[in-house]
């Protein structure tokens, strides 16, 4: 029961922040609301007993990526509100399609629960006390079973670092 309260709290903040994020004119406000949405997602991870992912989300996503976004928005002077030139057709068609997909998924999940034997055959989760310690479990998996993707991810990050530095350099520096 307490699980449900925590879940609805974080889920509500996440959805509300996401909605506010895509509707703000000021880019910094959007960035702040994305930060709260990411913090709420971290809360969902914590509620799912994924503690390492919770803290990685906060360190990397909120503490790294969002700070980078805010830096770029400030340095490129994007916080000035831009004039509105909405395409009503595009906006309403996007919203309608999204609502349609959402309703369809909701109907599928609801009907699947009512028909015995159909739908998601997901086992009930293990009680929290019997879970292995999260960091050790994740580290074992990462360094034994998934070592190759781990190394590839580090190469990916190196390439991204080089790419970002090259992109950010002034043209006159390369002479």
């Amino acid at each position, binding site marked *: *029961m*307490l699980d449900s*309260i925590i879940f609805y709290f974080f889920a509500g903040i996440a959805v509300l922040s996401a909605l506010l994020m895509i509707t703000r004119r*000021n880019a*910094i*406000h959007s960035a*702040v609301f994305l*930060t709260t949405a990411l913090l709420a997602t971290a809360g969902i991870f914590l509620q799912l007993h994924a*503690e*390492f992912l*919770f*803290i*990685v989300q*906060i*360190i990397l996503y*909120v*503490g*790294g990526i*969002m*700070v980078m976004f*805010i*830096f770029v928005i*400030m*340095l490129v002077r994007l*916080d000035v509100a831009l004039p509105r030139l909405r395409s009503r057709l595009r906006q309403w068609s996007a919203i309608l399609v999204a609502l349609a997909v959402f309703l369809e998924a909701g109907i599928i999940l609801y009907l699947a629960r009512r028909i015995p034997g159909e739908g998601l055959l997901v086992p009930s989760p293990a009680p929290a006390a019997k879970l292995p*310690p*999260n*960091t050790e479990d994740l580290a074992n998996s990462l360094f034994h079973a998934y070592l190759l993707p781990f190394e590839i991810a580090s190469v990916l990050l190196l390439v991204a670092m080089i790419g970002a530095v090259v992109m950010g350099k002034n043209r006159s520096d390369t002479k």
Partner: protein
Amino acid sequence: MNPALHSVLAFLQGWWVELLCAFLIVALVPLIAGYIVLVERKLMADMQARLGPMRVGPHGLLQPIADALKLLIKEDIIPAEADKLVFWFAPVLSMTAALTALGAVAFGPWFHVARDINIGLLFVVGISALGPFGIVLGGWASNNHYSIIGALRSTAQLISYETTAGFALVSGFLLSGTLRVGAIVEQQRADHAWYAFLAPVGFITYLIASIAETNRAPFDLPEAESELVAGYMTEYSGFRWALYFLGEYANMIVVASVGTTLFLGGWLRPFPSVDWLGWLDALPALLLAAVGVYCLIRAGKQPAQVQKLFMWAVAFACFGVALIFALAAPLAMAPLHIIYPGLYGAFWFLVKVSAYIYVFMWLRFTLPRFRFDQLMRLGWHILIPLALVNILGVGIALALISGLGWNRWLAIAITTTATVIAGLLLIRWNDRHAVAASLAAEASPVEDSYAG
């Protein structure tokens, strides 16, 4: 509604101790931070051959209370074009990050808010990564050029040195093998050494990085008064400024706690596993009794009656606490014996954290300020390569110890020397390019229309 209420009540019943500790942190840490400010002013005065605040209360001890009252009753000024929501939110975020990070720190084997969380020290490091957010949003919301420049500089400094501190901490985590706070300290007891001695390069790097992490001198250019007015805090007055300031000092307590837990042995007494040094257990009581005796001696030399009475009161308080410590000692009476680990642990932890913060303050009063490009060069060109080579060195030392069975101190000594040499070579090679580039830029003749 009933099952929801039941679950909430069950939660409160099971976790009321932790909630009480959390409440105490939020209530007491701002007060403690205020008194750290007073200690800093007194120390600064002592190192500058003067007395510091003496007027408010006996020996200036009520100065933080007076400052807090002044800041609370000041007019709340918000700049005209400032973004009101973000302006309000930014200092709150800064303070919240610092206080939440304190939740996972264990002040002793018994005193911690969060019950032995799996990610332990990484939680503290990660939540204090939310601090720069409050700074950059506050600087932007002030709608002031100096604020934005100060905020961007400060945030750039903070995120650079967060990386450095993270690398330095990784070398400590390699030695302890776990992230849990209690397990780290127990591992230091089992290893018979503080990790500051087993990973000295990591400890020094973390010390320097934590000074930069908290915007303290000599890395305080973004908020120095002679540089950018007050940087990102320019437009903040009254209690909003107090929140930023207290957040900075709470952050100081956080990084000192992390450094103490991982590198200085947490709540263990010096030489925790050496049995013939067991008389060190009596040290807290003796130290406090000595302070009490000193207060009694000084009480006779005070000019005013109220100061004399105050010194006597302090002396008797010291004797009282020393008595509690002595009665809790293992040789003493059974009922108080059970509080021995918590009490002594908390004492040693607080002593170490105070020593760490004393080093912060000492460096502030001694060293001149770094220029911003020198600061960034120190972080990226010097400390990060050194910290990376240090991780390699500690890893090699552990492999030598556990894989090849070398003597522990020999392996550590050799790898530390190799780390320092390799780090210096790497820095020299890396910096030579940067120095050569800047020299080339200076050597090319620049059109100076004001010259001549």
